[in-house]
């Protein structure tokens, strides 16, 4: 059994999995059920001057029958009295001393920050998370992402928080910026102990084609919301890696953004996250998903021979480099396993229309290769389907074949193939040593 416990900014958590600040951490009763299910920590639904919410609040993107691949919300911070929230925080910490409770905060003036930080610390918060990311509603009042997008303001408020707090201060960053390093550096300069990212992405989730009102609708109107869920993971991973790569960002990071499975979590950890925060997947399936997050991560670490989750942290960062450092001589080609192929033709049409026209069917070569469909470019190479060993008719006529001379190894066929391991990308034999664009530039050959 690998050691899943983590220590972030001196806060010990039994595992890296925290509930993100959102509807699942709205009340003490919820947070305690989350802890019972196995969550190591929870970032409390953002506290501030209680607001009035609108209805409806949520929207989602489904794709080809898969529900909620992307999610957005126009809900604001807590709508419950601060006194109730602090009382519940106190109760939760008393009953669950080994679980982490971070309190997310969002207020305006320095006095308000001082007041709310004191009350949070008094209630027993293990740490604070400054919500500088919320991209809807609160930013119109000068808070949330209005702060996250202004590095100077962000830095100043962070320094206030550090002044008033004797527990670690995390700054939650907005992804709605051109360069994440600007707010990231501001948070570090302001003295933060850690960074949480990403908050949601400014979005319109869709338009109701009957009413022609954007979603989610509030009567006959809507507003931009915060986008999250599985579809945002790649954006979050990138921003995480950019900060993780930057030596000046020398604080631990709590990773957030579309995490639904232990694989997602392991990827965040490998790109430098110390803890993982989850919201949308819990809103979709409930707290129970943490069981497989823990179990799956543990099995993965065991299989990898890693004794603790911290041994995985940041392991993928060295492999994240500038394009100019990539090896221009690296060469792979697609191989189709004829025994596994079901003849759906998806690799063929994808390569034909979307890539480099190097997959052919045995019914005939692809367009552009011969005859009247040739747009004047002429045949690229003469390719023939692989023949039976006796030189007779081609084996398995439904199986497309790759023109290995022309295949540029782009992955597209492999990505669209519905059969696991049917198309694989294999390294082509080559003798040339690594040479990158930067090498060419250095030699003056580019």
């Amino acid at each position, binding site marked *: 059994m690998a050691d899943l416990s983590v220590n972030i900014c001196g806060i010990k958590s039994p595992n890296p999995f925290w509930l993100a600040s959102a509807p699942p951490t709205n009340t003490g009763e919820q947070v305690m059920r989350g802890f019972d299910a196995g969550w190591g920590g929870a970032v409390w639904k953002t506290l501030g001057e209680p607001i009035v919410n609108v209805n409806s609040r949520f929207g989602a993107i489904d794709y*080809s*029958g898969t529900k909620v691949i992307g999610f957005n919300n126009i809900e604001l911070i807590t709508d419950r009295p601060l006194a109730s929230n602090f009382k519940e925080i106190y109760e939760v910490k008393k009953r669950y001393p080994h679980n982490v409770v971070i309190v997310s905060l969002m207020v305006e003036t320095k006095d308000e920050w001082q007041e709310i930080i004191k009350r949070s610390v008094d209630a027993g918060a293990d740490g604070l998370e400054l919500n500088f990311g919320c991209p809807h509603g609160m930013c119109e009042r000068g808070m949330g992402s209005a702060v996250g997008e202004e590095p100077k303001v962000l830095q100043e408020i962070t320094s206030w928080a550090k002044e008033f707090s004797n527990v670690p201060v995390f700054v939650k960053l907005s992804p709605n910026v051109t360069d994440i390093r600007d707010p990231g550096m501001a948070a570090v300069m302001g003295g933060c102990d850690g960074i949480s990212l990403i908050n949601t992405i400014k979005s319109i989730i869709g338009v109701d084609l009957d009413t022609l009102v954007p979603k989610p609708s509030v009567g006959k109107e809507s507003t931009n919301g915060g986008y999250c869920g599985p579809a945002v993971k790649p954006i979050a991973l990138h921003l995480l890696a950019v900060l993780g790569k930057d030596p000046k960002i020398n604080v631990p990071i709590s990773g957030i953004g579309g995490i639904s499975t232990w694989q997602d979590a392991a990827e965040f950890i490998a790109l430098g996250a110390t803890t993982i925060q989850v919201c949308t997947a819990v809103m979709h399936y409930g707290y129970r998903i943490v069981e497989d997050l823990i179990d799956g991560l543990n099995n993965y670490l065991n299989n990898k021979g890693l004794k603790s989750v911290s041994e995985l942290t940041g392991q993928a960062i060295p492999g994240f480099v500038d394009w100019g450092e990539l090896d221009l001589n690296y060469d792979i080609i697609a191989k189709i396993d004829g025994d596994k192929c*079901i*003849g*759906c033709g*998806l690799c063929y*049409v994808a390569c034909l229309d979307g890539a480099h026209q190097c997959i052919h069917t045995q019914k005939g070569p692809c367009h552009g290769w011969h005859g009247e469909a040739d747009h004047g470019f002429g045949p690229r190479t003469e390719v023939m389907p692989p023949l039976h060993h006796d030189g007779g008719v081609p084996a398995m006529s439904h199986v497309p074949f790759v023109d290995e001379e022309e295949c540029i190894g782009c992955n597209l066929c492999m990505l669209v193939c*519905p059969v696991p391991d049917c198309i694989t990308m294999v390294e082509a034999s080559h003798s040339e040593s690594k040479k990158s664009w930067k090498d060419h530039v250095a030699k003056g050959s580019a």
Partner: protein
Amino acid sequence: MGNKTSSKPLLSPKRLERQFSDYKPLYSEAEALIEANRCINCYDAPCISACPTGIDIPAFIKKISTGNIIGSAKVIFEANMLGYSTGRVCPVEELCVGACVYNDLNSSPIQIGRLQHYAAKKAMEIEENTGEKLFPRSKRKSDKKVALIGAGPASLACAAYLALDGIEAVIFEKDTLPGGLNTTAVAPYKIQTEASIEEVNWILQHGVELKTGVEIGKDIALEKLIDEYEAVFIGIGLGMGKRLELKGNDSAAVWRATDLIRKIKNDPDFSLPDELNTVLIIGGGNTAIDISRELAMLGVKDVRLLYRRSRKEMPGYEHEMVEASRYGVRLVEHVTPLEIIRNGEQIKALKVKSTISNDIFDLPCDWVVEAVGQLKHVTKISPEIEVDDQGRVIVDAKTRCTSNPKVYAGGDCINGGKEVVNAAQDGREAAFDILRNLGISPSLHGEKYFKSFVSENKN
């Protein structure tokens, strides 16, 4: 005139077939969406090649998944005007569904027939509710007339494509009810007569004229039609069920399968006698399997199918036999009937011989049903039409034109008994050739859906 089964309204709810429920009921919207989204949208999909009408199946399924039902139905009907009934009655396991790539992934194949049924049905409903036609009739004026003999799938498909391009298409049907086998023979758990008639009416509203109760060769001579019309299409199917030369089979308790099936489907006064316990069906084709399953589903306790060879050699589909077995039908292989032993009109037993041991034994029973194929009756229409040694009308493989250049034929009368979908394709191909010969280029249904045209280009 046609052999009317009753003077009462033929679509009385008392008909026995009303006791059957749909074996594959119409999908709900949610079911259709889930199934449509499972389709991986193959390129040059094997299901298309497996369809005799070459419907662009992935295209119509994709349109269901995006909620474009009208577009989906158009893809279906452009290739197959009988898309509604074929979605229900096609042996999809042997055709499109059997070719689905999911079979090779050990996953359940896409239920193409049920999706087709869904899109066609929903589009017909939308058409009715909005009054907007999927296929408005061509405004082109034409004084050309085509006569079609028999109101079954082949003629209906042919007439629809002709009518859409402004041709006056007139169908002559000797019976009182149109629809051919969909109306009179297809198992009621696949389609009932109401639905078949509904489809016929949908086709008629494209400008096709139907004359029932008129028998060509009897009431009107074929030659007269040839004189008066630009072209004649023969889609008369097959004739009466064949009889065995079996001693003792001249009893009311010995049935032709086709007659019995038709009574179950269309005769409001027909019911099974209470004391009917054992029925033996002689034959190994799909009609034999159908009537066995129908009788078993209607409550006959002991239904046995007698076939002279083994199950593997049965011409009926294995998937149909499997389904029949689920309802209690038992198969007796390797027996051939010798004689019906009777007590007056009543049957005591069927004397059979084992084709393996040559042992002879009696099988006590109440009814015997002969399901041993149907007669060809094209010669009744005109001795002028050339037929092969099996009585099938000889036509050109692509144009469906007979030895007489003005006469076309399609469906069971040219192929000896295939599926509704084959008949629909024959009708379409004949329609295209008739249009071409009349100098009319087919309009909205487009040559790209015309299979033989495509294969012509490939050569």
